[in-house]
């Protein structure tokens, strides 16, 4: 089963701390949503409010069109997968997975049948008689997933479920989570502080900071067209270049930066073209400093000198000094950048994003 979720003006105050500040969000049925942000950004509070473990100070939550704001966790069409898995240590896997069904009064034989099918889904049917302590971390994780899904929730809430796994296993579990979500069609709301994990699994990412939503969108749109400085910085490495608006034409605007005047297409301005004289920030991903073809419009920031370089496998990460500004550039792995050589700071015009200072969503 699956359902849409609607969060309206949710605010949660703990004493003097606003953990969640007037957050509104609509999640479509069957969507895989990732709440992404640093610790203390409010993502876990929002998840707890969806699960019913925390009541919002103000605002409402609706799931499948029904108001759930003051409904207890047991009576919600949600289940939570906890960070520490929270498996029942004294029960075998079959009974762990069947627990929710038992609470719903399902007969033993039917319950076991269903528990087996969900253990099958996560590839652990053969271990159904084992206890949780006999399993590895990744296996416990799968059992927790099967247990949460066995009661057919409309919405599954995942609280940093991959946090305790090592990197390789985490990547593998991300693929599995995504595949299982596609299969069962349940709405998944997943909390993490790892932007790579978010990009690997999400249909849409919700970037949060200081109790507010900074940005919402597909992984590509958030990475390529961030709508706030925080969002741009949190999703990956980025160069922030301060600038001032000079003049605007029909489809173009000119900005003055420390590296000279640059003409940018109007589409680079995510939140509209500001008036002349306003301060803005150019966001440039390091991998965009790569020789653009002649066929597309390019922007030049002059020339820079490579002051440092390190090989990262997929790219060379270089520091480039130009007119007192230090930029980071990722050059192709096949290049051989040497410290001291000059680099043409040319990039595709549409790869630059301009944000107004202090701009949020």
């Amino acid at each position, binding site marked *: 089963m699956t359902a849409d979720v609607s969060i309206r003006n949710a605010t949660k105050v703990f004493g003097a701390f606003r953990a969640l500040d007037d957050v509104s969000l609509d999640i479509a049925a069957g969507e895989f949503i990732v709440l992404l942000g640093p610790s203390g950004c409010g993502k876990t509070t929002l998840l707890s409010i969806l699960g019913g473990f925390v009541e919002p100070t103000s605002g409402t939550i609706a799931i499948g069109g029904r108001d759930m704001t003051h409904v207890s966790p047991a009576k919600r069409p949600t289940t939570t997968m*906890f960070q520490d898995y929270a498996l029942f*240590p004294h029960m075998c896997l079959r009974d762990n997975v069947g627990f929710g069904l038992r609470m719903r009064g399902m007969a033993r034989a039917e319950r076991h049948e269903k528990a087996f099918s969900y253990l099958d889904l996560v590839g652990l049917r053969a271990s159904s008689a084992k206890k949780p302590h006999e399993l590895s971390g990744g296996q416990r994780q799968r059992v927790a997933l099967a247990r949460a899904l066995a009661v057919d929730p409309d919405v599954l809430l995942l609280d940093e479920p991959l946090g305790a796994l090592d990197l390789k296993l985490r990547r593998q579990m991300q693929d599995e989570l995504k595949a299982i979500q596609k299969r069962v069609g349940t709405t998944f709301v997943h909390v993490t502080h790892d932007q790579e994990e978010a990009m690997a699994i999400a249909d849409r990412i919700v970037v949060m900071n200081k109790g507010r939503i900074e940005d919402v969108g597909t992984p590509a749109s958030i990475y390529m067209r961030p709508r706030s400085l925080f969002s741009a910085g949190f999703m990956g490495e980025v160069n922030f270049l301060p600038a001032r608006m000079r003049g605007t034409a029909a489809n173009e605007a000119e900005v003055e930066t420390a590296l000279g005047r640059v003409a940018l297409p109007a589409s680079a301005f995510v939140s509209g073209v500001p008036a002349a004289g306003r301060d803005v920030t150019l966001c440039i991903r390091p991998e965009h400093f790569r020789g653009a073809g002649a066929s597309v419009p390019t922007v030049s920031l002059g020339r820079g000198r490579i002051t440092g370089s390190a090989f990262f496998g997929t790219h060379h990460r270089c520091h480039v000094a130009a007119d007192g500004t230090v930029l980071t550039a990722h050059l192709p792995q096949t290049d051989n950048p040497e410290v001291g050589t000059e680099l043409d700071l040319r990039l595709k015009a549409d790869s630059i994003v301009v944000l107004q200072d202090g701009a949020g969503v």
Partner: protein
Amino acid sequence: MRHLTTALAALYAGLLYLFIFLPVVVLVLFSFQDGTLPVPPLNGLTLRWYEAVFSDGKLMAALGNSLVVAVVSSAIACLLGFLAAYAFARYTLPASALLRSLIVAPMTVSTLIIGLGLLSVLNLTGLRLSLVTVGIGHVVINLPLCFAIIYASMGGHQVNIERAARDLGARDWQVMLLVTAPMLLPSILAAFFLSVTFSWDEFIVAFLLSRFDVTLPVEIWSMLRSGLDPRTNAIGSVVFLISVAFLIVMELAVFRKTGKSS
């Protein structure tokens, strides 16, 4: 020099164990005395005192009473201790630390005081002295112990597990019965068996709060009033043996469980 210190340490340890176990060894040894006085010299070995004890209707009735009182009162003490521990561990209560120490405080009060106090209270309520009143007394003295053992084993890591159970639709009583209690089973069993062994050979409260039906320690005490007799050694050995049996069961139950859970 090192050998000497090792030898001295071994000697010291040996003396210490001798000091602790000599009375029990003497008691058990002279329960087999072939003669009417349970004192040296040992005249020979016989089982006739055990025969006499096991065919003594009053003693066997008292033994049965003791078992019933020990098991029932310990079960009640564990149940109450568990509920109290659950409340203190899972809810924020006003003056929680004070209330907790008040529950444990009776452990430091002598059983004589508790027995006398209960006797006056029972007189006021008009409740007749019986095995029930002895059981009540044993619940009073064992509850602090059960509470302390169970409370100590309730940690924060179980909170999320209980949350998960609630999230999956369990009601409060189902969470306690199906999740919390089974998770805490090792410590609940430890509390139960320790409580049983205390109740099993408790004398003062049992003596003050009983009348016609008495427990085994009280019956043994009335036997002693007619003088020393190898029968007292025999029944004493039986009491000791049963205590040891309870302790072994506890060790097996508790360590088998904790050894398995990670």
